[in-house]
């Protein structure tokens, strides 16, 4: 038992408790520095565990309890390369966010840091644990810390966004707890290994299926997948931008990772569940990718736009997972990392706009971005990366996913994901062109922006705002070869829990190298289409409207901002899963 394992959870909690106790008495910058140091230390520790666990999982029994007879009575963390990599990534993202948030939350003293450190501890616990109820505990800590961070601005929209977030995600917790109850009823254990043995023995047991339906609903709510996605855009749009960075960069993908972890550690033995994931899961992923991409394009509030693009990209991740083959999971990890870095940077940049220009409305800011042109370059790079440009981690992931998709004869899914990337990339590029270059005048619309005052404190120099975003983008652009190899190693241990990752899974036949270029080109075209409407023949515009208007009328009511609607959709999603599972069995 290496004593490193409990640290990613225990240290942030301890530091947070210290900050909560002493926050009022410490000099102003101490909480900032302490939080940064903690996040960095956790990154390093997780990275060390990530390399060490390649030769076999690092198991840690809390409280020294393991088993009585054959019955597991304690809680263990079982560190596998996949989970440890996610923990390291979470630490890194928190570190960058603490730099970005330097001095922003002075009004509430150290409370921001306290909640963020709880958040970090929860994410680390969530990805490392090997116990179902413990997974739920960290899931809920994550939620509660996030609830508290959302409503910081106390504006009407922030409060309502936080309300929707809290209600939907509390329901997610209840669903997970219900699922735990059902599986405990059959197995009488909470340790993943015991559960997976039981599931493997009788994969068609309705209790397991019911349990999976509830658990998956819970995690898919957090992962913001169709039809559970509506809370995300409200929440991300109104949360303070440092918090949005964490939400989009790590919290939502980690919610989805909950399904991944549960499937491979517990439910992989059930043929019914495998079938359902392989079909319905794939559809949900593709639907989320396309819906997110389309809605993204219709937004003018920049953070809301980015929020929808998160739905889209997490949808791509779900589609990748639902292919269920090993290379697809490697692609999942790479895509998650690349997306988190890129999206984190983009949220930071929109925070920069909020701080320096005092607005977030794409049309209202038209041309104003010239004052902060370096941010424009970074924005464009982020847009290109989201759009599928053939460079960096996200592209590395996309290629693996595409290859795995065509191997599994799911080329249509890969193509749909390509379209989704092009849509989101196009939307971000359009915003870049409009804000930083002043293109795409929309006469008479400037005044119709969101009326609420949203400015964030501009008490930081521009370079300090820009630096973390640029660093994240550089990381996202990094040559992905080593990480790709690591990801292919990590999936071995992910897919057969408890095993060492001996050799990386082979790379399947790569897709045609022109695909990423098509995606990028498409993104640029979409952006150009919106920016240069006045030069496009009228007949094309009319045709475009004829296609998009019904779609908008169909999709917009789903995101009405009323919590009742969202919950109704959640029940509909649960029904969908339940029906699919009972049909498949």
């Amino acid at each position, binding site marked *: 038992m290496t004593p490193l394992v409990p640290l990613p959870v225990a240290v942030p909690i301890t530091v947070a408790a210290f900050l909560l106790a002493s926050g009022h008495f410490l000099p102003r910058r101490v909480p900032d520095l302490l939080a940064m140091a903690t996040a960095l230390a956790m990154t390093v520790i997780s990275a060390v565990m990530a390399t060490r666990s390649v030769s076999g999982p690092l198991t840690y029994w809390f409280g020294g309890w393991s088993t009585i007879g054959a019955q597991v009575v304690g809680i263990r963390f079982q560190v596998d390369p996949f989970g440890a990599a996610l923990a390291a990534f979470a630490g890194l993202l928190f570190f960058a966010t603490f730099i970005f948030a330097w001095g922003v939350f002075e009004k509430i003293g150290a409370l921001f840091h306290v909640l963020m450190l709880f958040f970090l501890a929860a994410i680390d616990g969530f990805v490392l644990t090997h116990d179902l109820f413990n997974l739920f505990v960290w899931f809920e800590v994550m939620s509660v810390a996030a609830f508290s961070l959302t409503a910081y601005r106390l504006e009407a929209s922030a409060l309502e966004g936080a309300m929707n977030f809290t209600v939907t995600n509390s329901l997610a917790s209840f669903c997970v707890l219900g699922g735990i109850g059902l599986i405990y009823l059959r197995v009488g254990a909470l340790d993943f290994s015991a559960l997976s043995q039981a599931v493997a023995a009788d994969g068609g047991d309705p209790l397991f299926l019911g349990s999976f339906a509830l658990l998956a609903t819970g995690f898919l709510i957090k992962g913001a997948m169709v039809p559970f996605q509506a809370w995300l855009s409200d929440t991300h749009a109104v949360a303070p931008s440092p918090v949005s960075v964490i939400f989009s960069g790590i919290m939502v993908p980690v919610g989805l990772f909950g399904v991944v972890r549960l499937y491979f550690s517990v439910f992989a033995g059930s043929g019914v569940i495998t079938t359902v994931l392989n079909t319905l899961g794939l559809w949900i992923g593709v639907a989320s990718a396309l819906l997110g991409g389309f809605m993204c394009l219709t937004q003018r509030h920049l953070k809301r736009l980015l929020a929808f693009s998160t739905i889209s990209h997490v949808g791509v991740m779900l589609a990748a997972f639902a292919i269920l083959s090993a290379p697809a999971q490697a692609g999942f990890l790479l895509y998650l990392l690349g997306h988190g870095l890129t999206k984190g940077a983009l949220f930071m940049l929109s925070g920069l706009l909020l701080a320096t220009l005092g607005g977030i409305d794409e049309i209202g800011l038209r041309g104003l971005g010239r004052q902060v042109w370096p941010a424009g370059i970074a924005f464009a790079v982020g847009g290109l990366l989201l759009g599928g440009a053939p460079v960096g981690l996200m592209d590395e992931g996309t290629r693996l996913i595409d290859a795995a998709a065509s191997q599994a004869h799911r080329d249509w899914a890969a193509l749909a994901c390509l379209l989704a990337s092009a849509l989101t990339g196009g939307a971000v590029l359009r915003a870049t062109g409009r804000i930083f270059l002043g293109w795409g005048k*929309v006469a008479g619309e400037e005044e119709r922006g969101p009326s609420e005052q949203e400015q964030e404190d501009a008490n930081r120099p521009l370079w300090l705002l820009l630096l973390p975003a640029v660093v994240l983008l550089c990381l996202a652009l990094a040559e992905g070869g080593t990480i790709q190899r690591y990801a292919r190693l990590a999936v071995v241990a992910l897919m057969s829990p408890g095993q060492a990752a001996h050799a990386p899974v082979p790379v399947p036949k790569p897709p045609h190298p022109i695909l990423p270029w098509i995606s990028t080109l498409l993104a640029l075209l979409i952006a150009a289409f919106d920016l240069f409407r006045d030069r496009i023949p009228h007949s094309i515009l009319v045709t475009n409207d004829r296609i998009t208007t019904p779609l908008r009328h169909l999709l917009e009511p789903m995101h009405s901002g009323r919590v009742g609607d969202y919950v109704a959709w959640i029940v509909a999603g649960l029904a969908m899963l339940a029906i699919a599972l009972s049909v498949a069995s």
Partner: protein
Amino acid sequence: MSVLLALLYVIVAGTGAGVVFSREPRRQVLAIAANGLALTLLFTALQAPDVAFSELVVGTAATPLLFVVVLASMRTDQKKESKHDVGGGGRPADSKGVSRCRPARLI
């Protein structure tokens, strides 16, 4: 399963529904307390004294108290609200604000 246990389950079903269907918040507070009490009894019958105790202090005391306090402060708040709003157009009618941020035709 004993008759007592079955009866308690049925009572909880009733009180739970009572919470949902008492639409008037002040009446709902009573329903919440009643539901907490019913759950306490059920948990006791399920041989879970610890949980029953927890439910007793939280469900019948702390939570209803918070609800009462919130409702009380909203009532005092309403007074301030109406005072500020004299001639101000009224805040609840903020639906105007919604129409203000009408979408641009971006697609």
